């Protein structure tokens, strides 16, 4: 299966560990994620105007690239676009819903006079949805090194779940990540904070807000016995990991805990080459290696 793939800026910078592991895992499952030959920001920027139109130009441009890939034969009749970053997924899918209104679609198409018209036929998918479609039985067959004895708590954040029209699962009590972690053989720990806010972009100028949320979002899964948190979103991952430093300054009782993408846990469970784990990259506040070594998983 060759499927168009939209990376987004994080996958090339702060979330390289997510991309490198996801690409390797996908390839093992027979999925070839073909990066869009041209792509721009998914569209998550401060909008210039308050008409709710301009901010959809960037995502729609990316969806046009999927049409182009089909027309030039890079992919064959494959109008699904898979994303790894939750923010990109959310932004692209929101724009795609927005232009279901033909009048709005016409306005955007008219504005982008140098592009071919967007026809509205692209389907935006998160990698988690694609994995579900591939099937957990097929994934189970690739698990060569089950994550036995590794107590993992899932963390979704908001972007993959809310609002309901955009979400990939139940917005209040999703289970898609738990199911996947079980297939990988992990001991899944209940996380009552799994759909809570991570603090998002407050991390830039109001670190203390994010530090408090990080403390709250980590203490309950830790109390439930979690040793590691599995995340889906680069911004959640950054906040939950890096802001432990600030959280510890405010709350002395916080125990540090490593944060990894579910895709990294997949690469480990599939027993792929270590370079695909993304653990050697200089991206971590709390390095996951010591825990994984202690569990004989690294």
């Amino acid at each position, binding site marked *: 299966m060759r499927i168009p793939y939209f990376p987004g*800026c994080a996958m*090339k*910078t702060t979330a390289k560990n997510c991309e490198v592991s996801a690409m390797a895992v996908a390839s093992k499952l027979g999925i070839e994620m073909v990066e869009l030959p*041209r*792509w*721009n*920001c998914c*569209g998550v*920027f*401060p*909008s*210039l105007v308050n008409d709710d139109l*301009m*901010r959809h*130009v*960037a995502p729609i*441009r990316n969806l046009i690239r999927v049409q182009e890939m089909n027309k030039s034969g890079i992919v064959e009749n494959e109008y699904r676009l898979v994303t790894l970053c939750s923010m990109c997924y959310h932004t692209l899918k929101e724009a795609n819903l927005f232009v279901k209104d033909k009048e709005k679609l016409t306005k955007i198409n008219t*504005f*982008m006079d*140098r592009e071919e018209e967007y026809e509205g036929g692209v389907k935006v998918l998160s990698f988690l949805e694609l994995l579900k479609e591939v099937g957990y039985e097929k994934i189970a067959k690739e698990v060569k090194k089950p994550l036995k004895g590794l107590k993992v708590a899932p963390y979704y954040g908001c972007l993959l779940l809310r609002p309901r029209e955009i979400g990939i699962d139940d917005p209040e009590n999703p289970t898609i990540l738990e199911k996947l972690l079980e297939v990988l053989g992990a001991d899944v720990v209940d996380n009552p904070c799994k759909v809570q806010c991570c603090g998002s972009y407050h991390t830039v100028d109001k670190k203390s807000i994010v530090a408090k949320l990080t403390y709250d979002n980590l203490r309950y899964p830790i109390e439930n016995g979690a040793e590691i948190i599995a995340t889906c979103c680069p911004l959640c991952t950054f906040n939950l990991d890096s802001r432990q430093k600030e959280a510890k300054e405010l709350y002395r009782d916080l125990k540090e805990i490593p944060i990894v993408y579910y895709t990294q846990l997949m690469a480990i469970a599939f027993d792929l080459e270590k370079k695909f784990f993304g653990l050697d990259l200089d991206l971590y506040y709390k390095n996951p290696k010591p825990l994984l070594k202690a569990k004989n998983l690294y």
Partner: protein
Amino acid sequence: MSKSDVDEGKVRVYIMGREYKVPFGLTIMKAMEYAGYRFIRGAGCRGGFCGSCATVYRIEGDYKLRVALACQKTVEDGMYLTQLPFTPANKPVYDVEKLSPSVNVLLEYYPEIAKCVSCNTCTKACPQDLEVMDYVQAALRGDLEEVSRLSFDCIGCGLCAMRCPTSIVPYNVAQLARRLYGKYVMPRAKHVDDRVKEVEEGKFDEEMKNLMEASLDVLKERYTKRDIEK
């Protein structure tokens, strides 16, 4: 335009609002000179390479402001012309020796690139037909190689910056990217290193001295008889 004007091969242009009749086929720059203007800024090589003569114009009956290089674009009937002598664009001071080619360095010096809304106005403005928006986007994700590749033919005219609704300065961002890419990422060109060493060791000192001391006639003769690479 009256019939007699057409017969004379002339078109009407408006320079800063005032009407002039200038011959067909002149470039905007030549037309303004024909009308009596003298350029002391905003003119350079006159060959479309230096990027000094960015210009903005409109054609009668059309609402669009268009941009071009004044030395390249020929006049059309009913053109409203003016000349941009200088682009007062933001250009942070940095020491390239002290930077590293990290993914965030462009964002650090030009944080406004994060405001790009992908409207593509910069691309439409570029007289070199570069994919300006695409390289701003590559800059945003720290891809120095892609920025360098896509912006290689930039002549720094500044029109992209003048048109950007979020006040990004694409051409200066790209220049920093190319400096970093050239200095830290691209492989060193050995033949250049070898030649620089020869220059420093004085291999060409004698020849240079002869040239500097030669008379004008000798220089002229040597110039006309020089080897020209075909």
